[in-house]
C-alpha cells in the first residue's frame, strides 16, 4: 500500500517568508507526527496529533511554527517569518493508533527546507 507522502520534496524560500509543508499519512492511521532533522543529527520531535487534535506540541521551537490536521488525515506544518536556522529536513510519520507505546511510526521521505 501507499506509504507516507510529503510535498514538496524541496522548498527554497527567502528569510522572512511564510511556508507550508504538507503530509499525507498512511490511510487509516490515527496518529501523525512531525520531526525536524538537521544535518548530521537525529530527528527531533516537533508535534504529535491524535486524530484532529494536537496531543503534544512541546517540540515546536517557538510561536512561528504551527501545525494543523483539520480532518484527521492530511496535516500541514506552517512556518511564519522563516529564519536561516529553520533550514532542515522536515519529516512526517504516521502510526496506526498512537498512544500504545509500541506503536510503530512510519516515516515519509521528508521535505528539505532551505531558507536563504
Amino acid at each position, binding site marked *: 500500500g501507499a506509504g507516507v507522502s510529503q510535498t514538496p520534496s524541496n522548498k527554497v524560500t527567502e528569510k522572512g517568508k511564510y511556508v507550508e509543508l504538507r503530509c499525507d499519512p498512511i490511510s487509516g492511521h490515527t496518529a501523525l507526527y512531525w520531526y525536524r532533522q538537521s544535518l548530521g543529527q537525529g530527528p527531533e*520531535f516537533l508535534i504529535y496529533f*491524535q486524530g484532529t487534535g494536537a496531543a503534544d506540541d512541546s517540540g515546536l521551537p517557538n510561536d512561528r511554527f504551527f501545525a494543523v490536521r483539520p480532518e484527521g488525515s492530511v496535516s500541514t506544518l506552517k512556518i511564519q517569518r522563516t529564519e536561516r536556522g529553520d533550514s532542515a529536513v522536515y519529516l512526517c*510519520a504516521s502510526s496506526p493508533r498512537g498512544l500504545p507505546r509500541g506503536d*510503530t*511510526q*512510519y516515516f*515519509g521521505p*521528508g521535505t528539505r527546507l532551505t531558507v536563504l
Partner: protein
Amino acid sequence: AQSVAQPEDQVNVAEGNPLTVKCTYSVSGNPYLFWYVQYPNRGLQFLLKYITGDNLVKGSYGFEAEFNKSQTSFHLKKPSALVSDSALYFCAVRDTRSSNTGKLIFGQGTTLQVKP
C-alpha cells in the same frame, strides 16, 4: 533525562562479516526501543522494535537486536553484512514521561560502511 546514545559515529565492516551497531538508552519505566535505517535523501525505514518478551528481536533485511536491561543497551546486529546495508542507522526510544505523547527520542545516528 530520557535519552539515547549511539557511541560510534561510524562502523566499518567487510562484506560477509558480522556487524554490530551500538545503542544505549536512559528512560524511566519500561523501554520501548526502535531501530530505523536511512538511505541518502530518503526518509527513515523501520527495521525492528522491542516492546516486551524475548530479548532477541528479529526484523527486516536479516537484522536483529538484543535487548539487555542490566546494561540498558539495544545493539543492532546482522550475522553477515552486505554492501547494500551501508546507510545511516538510528536508535530511538519512546518517551515515557507522559501518557499523552507519541514522541520518539533519537540517537545521533551511526553510519555503517560495508566494504566489498
